[in-house]
């Protein structure tokens, strides 16, 4: 009786361990397909041009294949346009 109780406990424990291991593998192997990767080499150069010469940065964002996804293209374009407008305003004033 005692032995069977012990074996039941071990079985439950091993079942838990398997479940935990499976969950751990699932969590770590989860890859979000939508996740941006902002620090690729070509992208980092683009960020520098965003400040130094935004039109060229826009060219790199939209016409060169540096791996910018749609979300990144949208936000970087917004920043470029704001930058150009504000820069011109500062120069005019």
């Amino acid at each position: 009786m005692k032995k069977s109780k012990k074996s039941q406990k071990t079985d439950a424990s091993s079942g838990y361990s398997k479940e935990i291991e499976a969950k751990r593998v699932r969590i770590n192997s989860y890859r979000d397909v939508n996740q941006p990767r902002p620090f690729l080499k070509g992208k980092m150069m683009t960020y520098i041009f965003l400040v130094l010469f935004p039109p060229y940065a826009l060219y790199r964002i939209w016409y060169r294949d540096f791996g910018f996804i749609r979300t990144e293209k949208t936000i970087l374009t917004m920043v470029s346009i704001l930058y150009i407008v504000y820069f011109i305003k500062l120069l005019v004033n």
Partner: protein
Amino acid sequence: MKEKMMNAMLSFASKLQTQRHMSAIKNAFTALLPIVITGSFCTLFLNVLCSTTTDGVSLAKVPGFSWLENLSPIFNAANYATMNFMAIGIVILIALELGKHYGRTEFTVPVIAVACYVSLCDTFTLSTVDGAVHTIADVLPRDFTNAQGLFLGMIVAIVSVELYCKLFDSGKLEIRMPDSVPPTVAKAFNALFPALITIFLVSAAGFLFHAITGMTLFNAVSMFIQKPLQNILTGLPGYIVMFFMTTLLWVFGIHGTQVLGPIYQPMMYAAMAENLDAAIAGTPAPHILNIGFVSSFSIITGAGITGGLIIAILLFSKRDDYKTIAKIGIPCAVFNINEPLLFGLPIVLNPLLMIPFMLSPAVSAAFAYFMTDIGFAKVMTIYSPWTTPPGLMAFLNTEGHIGTAIVQLLCIGLAFLIYTPFVLMANKQQPAE
């Protein structure tokens, strides 16, 4: 009992990781990261290269270099375009990301989200000229576009996209167009009523809230959600609990920083943006704990400050397996990556090493907080990439403050002291097969 707890924790982490709103927030902040870093560095260049008015060291103050002041519009404009539009940026990004989950990839989705957000903002600002207060109409005050609006922006983006997608997918608001109408035009008309109703409902909710409580939604969210949460996370106890949770997830083999990032990142970014604003205005930075502090003192050389573990192993370990992995881990640790150690030693599910692994970031954060509080280290106003090597990172994040760089290196020293007894204990263990 232990396994039950672990199982529950893994289920929670799994749900958090795949939860669509959390995923959208995480991806939005990842996309925003280079913009925040660009804005931070522009402030750094503005202050250390071009400024002749700030108190600190600036190259423009050196005779012969005063021409550098002429370059300040470049960095001013970059700072304006990046940091001052953080809230609008996050609304667009979350709307795009959440839209993807529902298969709505058209640009209508972020446009609706921005429209909803703007409908809740004041369109006037008060200005004092010669002691008299004037109301300037038809403007969008910067409080609504910068980091102060982050939290409301996140809420509005999520609510508006959910609402729009539900209305759109119901199909009841579809406008039937003749076959001769091009599909793109028909699609735009199909979005018309869901978009109108979404904007109207959000705007009406804002109006009703103001009418009932006498308070704008922006102020209410700021006062009752954003500020209390920010106070918890930018206060030392809350911060330590949060990073204790992060390392706890790591010891179960889960990327704790990624799982809990969406919870603490918005507050930390907002704190950094407020510090940046203060730096530009020449006033003291208000938040010791911000996103720069996180990468400088809590995840330096990797989560758990494993740089200290590498030194302890190289000095005191008698185990060849530990020494080999520690040597492999050195180049990675320089760039704050520690996966070789986490899964190589391993630290994950290792009852001995998990104790110092969870303890080190808490002690390091408390020590750095104290050193900043007494003025030996400086409050961070810049955010450099998390892969910047230790010492240099703190130096850059504080616009070139040597004391902070020393504190960062001391934190690794502290971690070394914490890890050493456990490395000595591990000497008595047999290497794993």
